[in-house]
Structure formats: structure tokens, C-alpha cells
């Protein structure tokens, strides 16, 4: 019995190790690259023979990367806040209120969730140039907000639906105005859901590449993923491999932090909208 249990444990152990390696190895590989000096960069080793921070120092010396990092953080944060706020309002209505046009709203957000972004790139490119927001933060915040709104609405309305309807009724009977019921009862309960949604939306905005390279032309608004594609290396005679690897690791850090601390929430958020439909 004990032997069988042990064999079972070993088998699961092996399976789990394979899964973890599968998921993490490509990430480790780029981390290893980022710590290699130019001489050992091409050795193909999984662990750098001599560790160096040079690549990191290099990218932080140039404004090319730091500027892109500031753009990435600023644009993603602002778009996230807007999308979560607008999404919360709409999700509350979708989950709780009866009004004509609700189906239309749901259908429309579904449509946008399936929308090919490239189809928007050409008109947006032209419109933004005409309006004068091409290559600005706003020029990216607008499409990011739009494309993350369906995600925000779905996830949040699933969270709203989990809050028992009776709580709101109880608050009303207890003497609350609709605004008080929302502020004192609903909002505290949906706050974790808003936080989860914010993480998902942030990851979405952080990840975008197509809009970032299409709707920017200088480092005024170029985000890190786009900047990576234009990297030239810290000196002109070097391949930018080390720099790209280091920059890639830097923008991966927030993702790893989210995943480490909020694994459960992210999983819940990702699956809530999709399964309960």
C-alpha cells in the first residue's frame, strides 16, 4: 500500500515537473540570456557561466528603454482604471437591472471581444493622425480601453452575479438609498472582483504589440513591446540580443509578480465569464 502510494506520488511528481518545465523553460532561457556577457552570449548554455548586470545597466542608461517603460506603465495603468470603472458601471447594469437594449450591449461587447484589431488599425491610424492624437498616450489608451471593456464587463458581471440579490434588497429595507446600498454593501463585496479584473485588463494592455507599433512613431508613446522591435543595442556595434533579453525580463517581472501573488484570483477571473454563461 505504501509502495503504491509512493509510486503514485512519484508519477505525479514527474508529470508536474514536466508541466512546470514546459511553462517556465522559455522564460528561464531569456532570463539566462539577459545575464550573459557578450562573450558567452552565444554559448547556448542554460546557466550563464559568468553573471553580469551589464545588459540591465545598458538598457537603463538609454532613454529609449526607460521612456518606453514609463509609457508602458502609464498607458496600461490609465487604460486599466478607465476600463474597470466603465466596466463596473455597465456590468452592474447587466447583472442587476432590467432594461431594454441589454442584449444588444452584451452582443456588442462579444463582437468586440472577437474583433480583429488589425481591422481597426488602418482607420484608427488615419483618424488619429487627423485628430492629432497619433503617437500620444491618449492614442493608445483609447483602443486599449475599448478592447478591454468586453473583458471587464464579462468578468465583473460574473462577480456581480455572485453577490446575492437579497443583500441589496436587505440594504434597501434597512433604509439605504440606492447609492448607499451600492457604496456600503455592493462595492465592498465586488472590490476583489474589480481588483481581479484590473489585473486581467492590465495584462492585456501590457501585452499589446499591434496597436503599439501602429499608432506610435517616436518614443513619445512607444511602449516596451514595440520598443523591443526597434532596439539597436547599447552600442552600435553590438547585437541587441542582450539588451532585448534584459528589457524582456524587466517587463516580465510585473507579470510574474501578479501570477505569484494573485494566482487564484486570475484563474477565477479568467474562467468566471466563460463558464457561467
Amino acid at each position, binding site marked *: 500500500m505504501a509502495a503504491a502510494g509512493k509510486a503514485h506520488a512519484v508519477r505525479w511528481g514527474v508529470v508536474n515537473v514536466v508541466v512546470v518545465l514546459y511553462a517556465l523553460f522559455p522564460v528561464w532561457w531569456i532570463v539566462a540570456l539577459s545575464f550573459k556577457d557578450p562573450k558567452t552570449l552565444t554559448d547556448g548554455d542554460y546557466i550563464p557561466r559568468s553573471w553580469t548586470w551589464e545588459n540591465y545597466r545598458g538598457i537603463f542608461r538609454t532613454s529609449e528603454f526607460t521612456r518606453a517603460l514609463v509609457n508602458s506603465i502609464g498607458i496600461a495603468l490609465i487604460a486599466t482604471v478607465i476600463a474597470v470603472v*466603465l466596466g463596473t458601471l455597465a456590468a452592474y447594469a447587466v447583472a442587476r437591472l432590467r432594461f431594454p437594449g441589454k442584449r444588444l450591449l*452584451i452582443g456588442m461587447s462579444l463582437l468586440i471581444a472577437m474583433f480583429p484589431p488589425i481591422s481597426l488599425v488602418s482607420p484608427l491610424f488615419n483618424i488619429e493622425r487627423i485628430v492629432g492624437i497619433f503617437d500620444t498616450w491618449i492614442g493608445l489608451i483609447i483602443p486599449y480601453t475599448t478592447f478591454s471593456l468586453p473583458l471587464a464587463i464579462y468578468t465583473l458581471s460574473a462577480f456581480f452575479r455572485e453577490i446575492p440579490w437579497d443583500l441589496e434588497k436587505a440594504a434597501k429595507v434597512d433604509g439605504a438609498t440606492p447609492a448607499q446600498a451600492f457604496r456600503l454593501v455592493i462595492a465592498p463585496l465586488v472590490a476583489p472582483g474589480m481588483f481581479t479584473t484590473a489585473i486581467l485588463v492590465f495584462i492585456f494592455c501590457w501585452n499589446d*504589440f499591434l496597436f503599439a507599433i501602429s499608432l506610435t512613431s517616436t518614443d513619445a508613446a512607444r511602449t516596451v513591446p514595440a520598443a523591443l522591435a526597434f532596439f539597436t543595442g547599447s552600442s552600435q556595434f553590438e547585437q541587441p540580443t542582450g539588451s532585448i533579453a534584459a528589457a524582456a525580463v524587466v517587463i516580465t517581472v510585473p507579470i510574474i509578480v501578479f501570477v505569484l501573488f494573485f494566482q487564484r484570483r486570475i484563474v477565477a477571473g479568467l474562467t468566471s465569464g466563460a463558464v457561467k454563461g
Partner: protein
Amino acid sequence: MSAPPRPDGAPPPAGPRTGPDSRAALSAGARQERRLGWLLCAPAVIVMVAVTAYPVGYAVYLSLQRYDLRFPGRAEFVGLSNYGAVLSSSYWWDALWVTVFITVVSVTFELVLGMTLAMVMHRTVLWRGVVRTSVLVPYGIVTVVAAFSWQYAWTPQLGYLAALLPDGSAPLTEQWPALWLIVLAEVWKTTPFMALLLLAGLALVPEETLRAAMVDGASPLQRFTKVIVPMMKPAILVALLFRTLDAFRIFDNIYVLTSGAHRTGSVSILGYDNLFTALNLGIGSTISVLIFICVAIIAFAFVKLFGAAAPGAEVKR
């Protein structure tokens, strides 16, 4: 699983099923509710319409123009001739073929792998948190970063994977190997998402039902094919629909891995190149519109063929 039915307490399902006389009979409370509903949705709706509906219309308009940014003064209405040009060009059909190939192959692999991964995550007791956390990394990581990791891995004289190949081979510079590597990068990145969606579906299969099947004499394979899969069907369809549409828009991975060279460009890459390399807004917009139509066809086919329920479409109160 669900709240106890309370037909006397629960309001009827919300829907557009209002009778002709309902407007007159609508009470103050209901009117207030509907006004609040509109008010709350308005900001989101305005943003979504302004940033998608209008540009789509504008894209259609642009696609009917000859509009080359190098000669902006010479824009003129040309009817459907851009469509004729695109549809008769081998570039479009090549790109479409590449896109369909990548979509079908990667989604197939993702489904199989994702199912396996979901089963592992569902069953494992050991380091459950560790496994789930690591699986989220590919989902969360920036696609471009992952693509660079793969690119370097396959670059001769640099990468560990290239080192496994015979000397002198540069897989990213040939069409077929490159396509498979694009599929690999895509599968690695999105399988976890698929697995998580399937895992959520798997969690809805009651353990007792599986035990009952076991007592009824079903083998593990039969339990999987006859009990688990049918019960998970909605989750599988939703995951497939989402991933198919997503894969069809593939851009980042190809851009980094091959830039669409060696006939590995997807339709999105083709559209991008026409816009930003050739600076041809008319043709670029035509491609955009065609991609939009393709996506609409895929979504429609899914809904028609499988009756895939739109997630969240049925809103219960």
C-alpha cells in the same frame, strides 16, 4: 449547484419580451430602473461604438478609395477595385492559407494539450499551487517577449534549440520549419489559457457522476469520452471559439519570429505591411475589411454549427 427555484419570488427573466401595452403599464420603479440601466451602460457603449463602429465604417469607406499615403493628393473613389486587386493577388491567398494553417493546427494542438494540462491540474494534489502558478506564466507573459525567447532559441550559434539541429540549418528562414515554429510559439503561449477554461468546465463535472460511471463499469477512457467530454461540451466550445478567433488574428509571434518573410505572413501581417511599409491605406483597409469578414464568418459558423452559447449571453437575475 444553483439557487433554489423560487417561482413566486423571482422576477421573470429579463428580456425584450415586453407586450405592446407594457409602456403604459410600466411603473415608476421600472422606468427608473431602465433609465439607470441606460445611464450606467452609456459610457461603455459610447466608447465601444466610437472606437469600433465608426472606424469600421471608416475602414469600409477607405477601402473604396485609391489612397496612397505617398501621394495623398491623389485619393479618389474607385469602388470595389481594391477588393478585386486584393482577391486576385496571390499574396492575399498565401497569407490566408498561412493563417488558416496556423489557426487549425495550433488550436488542435492546444485543445489536446490543454485538455491534458487541465486533467493534470484537476487531478494533481501535489504542488497544486505551483503547477497552476507556473501555467499562468505563459498566459501572462508579453507575447513579444516569448517570441524573442523562441527566436533566440532557434537562432543558429545562439540558441539551445538550434544547437540540437544539424549544422547550418536555420529553421526560421524556410517556410515549413518556420511555420511549425510559429505554431509552437503560439501553442506554448496560449495552451494555458485553453487549459484554464477547460479546467473550469472540468470542475463542473460532479465527482459523484464519475463515481457512478465507475460503479457502472466504465473504463477510464469511457469515463472521459462518455461522461466528461459531453458534460464539458459548452466549456470546450467556448474555449475553441475564443481561441480560433484569437489565433486567426495572429500577429505578434510572426512579426518577431520571421516578420512574415519566406511566405510565413498571416493576413494581419499582410494588412500591416500594406499600411505601414507600402503606406497604401486603400489596400490596407481593404485587407482589414476582408479579415473582419473572415472573423465574422468563423464566429457565425461556430454559433450555427455548434450552437455555441455566447458567454454571458443569458443573464439571469
